[in-house]
């Protein structure tokens, strides 16, 4: 065991996977000599050399496009997009190519690229360094979307992603990159892509969340437990494929559902959770499904703390569904 931050867990997973499999390569802007602007790729260049840790020109389209070609040839590329906000120049390569390669070729060609990218607010980054674009990718068949919420999961999920046969958009909640440390096993372990994690079980309300929102939900749940209510928190971990069964089981037990996410509310990922519940377990519901989400505006700077879901808002939603 070693105490480490989420960022260190990512870095460790990359080191271990590159050592394990020489087909694993890393590419992106500033990932080499500089070790990444967040230092997620620190030390890789020094250890594995310029051929396997590539500083690329400033082109996300080029980064993802070339990674697809590498994967087609047989490498396991793990490109970094410096901020999720800058993934859009690569959107065409991701949606038209990465996601469809296997299906459109009848499995003849695959492109198991793992796109790592820090996402989310809470670092005073404004419009262009705070977005949470996960819903776009979840709406794109052919992609898997994974978001860890803590160091332990980050290491295990990233390893699974790298060892898998399908493309993964691996989104890292940068707000909690260094927010806390956790014991992480030094030996090799993987956390499978797919299952959600019930991080706190309860009988009164279900809160579905992921990434840095898990902590937000926990704070709200703590407050609710002072009032005598047991909140169940489900950390989704994998957004696509979604662990529908765990969600439905939870709602069937509690009868009340809340979804927390940072992205703009409309058409955000929480809509899918709400719709899934409304389609499959409506008869168990005793209250509206509330979405505590970001606003339908671009991400702001000064008032980001008002924009982002806050424990106080989640707590109020808990009260609302309990008092409905």
């Amino acid at each position, binding site marked *: 065991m070693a105490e480490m931050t989420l960022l260190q867990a990512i870095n460790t997973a990359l080191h271990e996977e590159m050592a394990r499999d020489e087909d694993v390569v890393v590419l992106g802007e500033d990932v080499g000599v500089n070790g990444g602007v967040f230092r997620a790729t620190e030390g890789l260049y020094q250890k594995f050399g310029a*051929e396997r840790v590539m500083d690329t*020109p400033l082109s996300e389209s080029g980064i993802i496009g070339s*990674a697809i*070609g*590498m994967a087609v040839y047989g*490498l396991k590329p793990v490109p970094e997009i410096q901020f999720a906000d800058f993934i859009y120049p690569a959107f065409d390569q991701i949606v038209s190519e990465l996601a469809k390669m296997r*299906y*459109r070729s009848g499995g003849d*060609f695959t492109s198991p690229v793992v796109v790592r990218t820090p996402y989310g607010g809470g670092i005073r980054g404004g419009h262009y360094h705070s977005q949470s674009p996960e819903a776009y990718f979840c709406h794109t068949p052919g992609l898997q979307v994974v978001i860890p919420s803590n160091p332990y999961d980050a290491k295990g999920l990233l390893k699974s992603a790298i060892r898998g046969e399908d493309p993964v958009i691996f989104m890292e909640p940068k707000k909690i990159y260094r927010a806390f440390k956790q014991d992480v096993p030094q030996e090799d372990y993987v956390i499978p892509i797919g299952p959600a994690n019930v991080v706190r079980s309860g009988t009164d309300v279900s809160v579905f969340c992921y990434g840095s929102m898990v902590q937000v939900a926990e704070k709200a749940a703590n407050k609710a437990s002072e009032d005598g209510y047991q909140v169940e928190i489900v950390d989704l971990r994998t957004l696509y494929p979604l662990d*529908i069964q765990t969600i439905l089981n939870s709602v069937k037990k509690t009868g009340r559902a809340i979804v927390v996410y940072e992205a703009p509310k409309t058409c955000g990922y929480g809509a899918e959770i709400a719709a899934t519940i409304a389609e499959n377990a409506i008869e168990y519901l005793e209250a509206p499904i509330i979405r505590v989400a970001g606003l339908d505006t671009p991400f702001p700077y000064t008032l980001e703390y008002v924009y982002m879901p806050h424990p106080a808002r989640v707590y109020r939603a808990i009260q609302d569904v309990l008092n409905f």
Partner: protein
Amino acid sequence: MSITQDQGKMSTTAKQHQKLPEGLTESQLKAIYEAMLLTREYDDRCLKLQRQGRIGFYAGSFGEEACQIGTAFALREQDWIFPSYRQPGVALLRGVPLQSMMNNLFGNSADVVEGKQMPVHYTSREHHFLSISSVIGTQVIQAVGCAMAAKIKKDEAVVLTYFGDGGTSSNDFHSGMNFAATFKAPCIFALVNNQYAISVPVSKQTSVECLADKAKAYGMTGIQVDGNDVLAVYRATKEAMQRAKVGEGPTLLELKTYRAGPHSSSDDPTRYRSKEETEKWLKRDPILLFQKELESLGIWTEAYEADVKASIQNKISEAIKVAESLPQPPWESLFEGVYSNDPQALMAQKEDILTHESGLELTNEGEFPL
């Protein structure tokens, strides 16, 4: 790679020539010619199939046979192709079975992708021929990544990618050229400048006169080649291969030619260009040009051509017959192969549809406009 097996036939005449062009043997020259003929015939028949309403869409390569065969003939088995949608001849030359291509056009149950892609979107890993995307330009940077991977893995493979004059305006032409030059990727960019992107002439596509000059922005070698002269294309590709192999990096080849047919079965070129223009270019029909060269070398005769054509036509007819007779893919196929494992949400959708809808009359309608 030769289509007719009787390669000895013209050899006496041919032997009179001390040296055949480009160091090619007689049978290689014939293979090139036959591949060009096959491409022409294939295009011709397939466009007719579309006109007859037997397949939904077709995009031919009429006039671009030299660009295809001249380049692809210079490659080796270990090399890779990242094509656009206008290289049926390259697929055929690489050995992709005619039947497999025809199955794609009909989207039938024997199709490699079980009717999941439109006509002309072939794929064959076995022949290092990447699954075709409709999206202009995306394959260019992917080709570069593939070449970078080969280099990283120390394999001696070169990657050749095709795209059009329109493609040079795309994002991934830019990223591809830049990455290739920066990483010295063993890669060849075959820019088929056929003068049009659907209706848009190259003069509205870019204001540079010589498209090969686009290489200058990237510190790359750029060469303009007569794309209707198959041996000139072959020679330029060989030279580019050589540069790639010795670590000198990528080359941009501008193959200057003309899209002699419509953009696709949905297009009516009379709306935007004159017959005279097209006829002018047809005087430099690449097959005719090469045929004359072969004739002067004593390799081509009318009988030879007739033989080859007859054989090709039979094969195509046979492939059409088979492809057309096969049923549609089963509904199950729709839900499979998105991932290595099938996700629960999708399997629920499958169950939902297969259990309930199979009895209902779902009708197939709609036509492709482009």
